[in-house]
Structure formats: structure tokens, C-alpha cells
């Protein structure tokens, strides 16, 4: 074991900070596309955690799960952007405060 090896905790801290940046972006921004991109950022930070634990325990299951997360993220991005286009056609707005059709 190498002494100059990077500790596992540093990857986890980077991942935690990235996740928090994503959360702050979702809460503060009002452009729906940027909110969507922040969701992608959060998914990526979770992927980093999964790969880190996979490398730590020497088990490939975490990396398989990252593969599936990426497939689901691709599907989610496509469907979400289609919904944004459909809403934009009707209202000509991309401000999330105007997306209250489903609000009771």
C-alpha cells in the first residue's frame, strides 16, 4: 500500500460538495433548463460516490450501477427536454414559476 495514495474521503468530499452545488442550483435558478442541468450534476456526484466505493471495496457492482444510472439519465434528459419544448410552445416561457399547470 502506497503512503502517497489519495484517501477515499477526499473523493467523497468532492462528491458531497458537487451534490450541494446541484441542490443550491435547483433551489435558486428559475431557468428550467439550468434546473435540469443541476439535476444532471447531482446524478453525476452520486455516480462519483458509487465509483469510489466500488474502488474501495474492489467490487464491480458499483460501476454496473453507474452504467444503469447513465442509461436512465439519458432517457430522463430526452423526455424532460421534450416536455420543456412542449410547454414552451404553449406558454412561450421557460420560467419555472410559470409551470403551475399541475398545481392544485
Amino acid at each position, binding site marked *: 500500500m502506497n503512503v*502517497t495514495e489519495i*484517501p*477515499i*474521503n*477526499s473523493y*467523497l468530499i*468532492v462528491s*458531497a*460538495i*458537487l*451534490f*450541494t*452545488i446541484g*441542490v*443550491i*442550483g435547483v*433551489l*435558486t435558478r428559475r*431557468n428550467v*433548463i*439550468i434546473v*435540469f*442541468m443541476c439535476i*444532471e*450534476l447531482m446524478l*453525476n456526484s452520486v*455516480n*462519483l460516490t458509487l*465509483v*469510489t466505493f*466500488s*474502488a*474501495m*471495496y*474492489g*467490487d*464491480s457492482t458499483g*460501476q*454496473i450501477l*453507474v*452504467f444503469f444510472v*447513465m*442509461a436512465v*439519465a*439519458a*432517457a430522463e*434528459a*430526452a*423526455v424532460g*427536454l*421534450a*416536455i*420543456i*419544448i*412542449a410547454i*414552451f*410552445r*404553449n406558454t412561450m416561457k*421557460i*420560467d419555472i414559476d410559470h409551470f403551475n399547470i399541475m398545481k392544485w
Partner: protein
Amino acid sequence: MSLKIILFSLISTIGLASAIMMILQRNPVKSVLLLIVNFFCLALLYLFLSAQFIAIIQIIVYAGAIMVLFLFVIMLLNLGDEKLLSEGISYKKRIAYILGIVLLAEILAGLSVPLLSSNSVISQNAQEIGTVQNIGKSLFSKYLLPFEITSILLLAAMAGVVILAKKKFQ
């Protein structure tokens, strides 16, 4: 300070800085480009963890396909500067920042538990598990059913996108 630690700090700093710039940026196109920088940094971090397959997939799928889709939609909707959007109420933003910092403190407090101190470096056989050969083997044997279900998911998403984007809602 070895070269590896210097490189790790540099890459993670660039990644975090581009993420912060991304949420502060007014122009959506610049935001997308900064997010692509962030994804490249994450791919390099995956290489540090010797997950070669995931690193390549990260660049091809995320930085390639998904971000091009985002850019395409921004161009299609002709979104320029965000000045058209009225500014958010400031107390809402302040509460959001406070909540984010509380969340970060909570996660970091969870990480400081000595749970991880037993084996806090990369495992010895991490080199082998990240290869395309190993991932492919387990993907087509142990995880064959989820893999096939993923293809159905992608097909359903494709059909849904075509229907949603084709014409107006009633």
C-alpha cells in the same frame, strides 16, 4: 506531496469551480459549456479510481450525447440572455443558500464518522474490476435482465419523446 495528489487537487478544484460558475452563469449556453468542463473533470477522477470504462462512457454519453441535446434545445428555443426572466425574490434565495449549506454540513458530518477509517485507500484489485472486459462480463451474465430492461426503457423514452415533441397539447 506527490504528483498524484497535486493532480487530484487541481482536477477537483477545476471541477468544483466550473460547477459553481455553472449555477451563477446568466447565459444558458455558457452554463452548458461549463458543465461539460465539469464532466471532463469527473471523467479524470474516474481514471484516478481506475474505472476506465466508466470514464470513457462519461465522456461519450454525458459530455457527448446529453450535453449536445441540451445545447440543441437551447438553440431551438432561441434562449439568449436570462434578463427576460424576472429576478427571484431575494429572501427565497437566501433561504436556499442556507438550506444548501446545512445539507453540506450534514453530509460532511456523516463522512467524519470513523466508519471509513478501516480501509480508507483504494483496494488492491481495483485495477482489474474497472476494465471493459470485467464490466462486460458481469453485465452480460449476472446483470443480463436489468441490461435488457434498460433497452426497453430507452425504447419507451424514444417513443415518448417523439409523441411529446411532435405536436401541441390540446
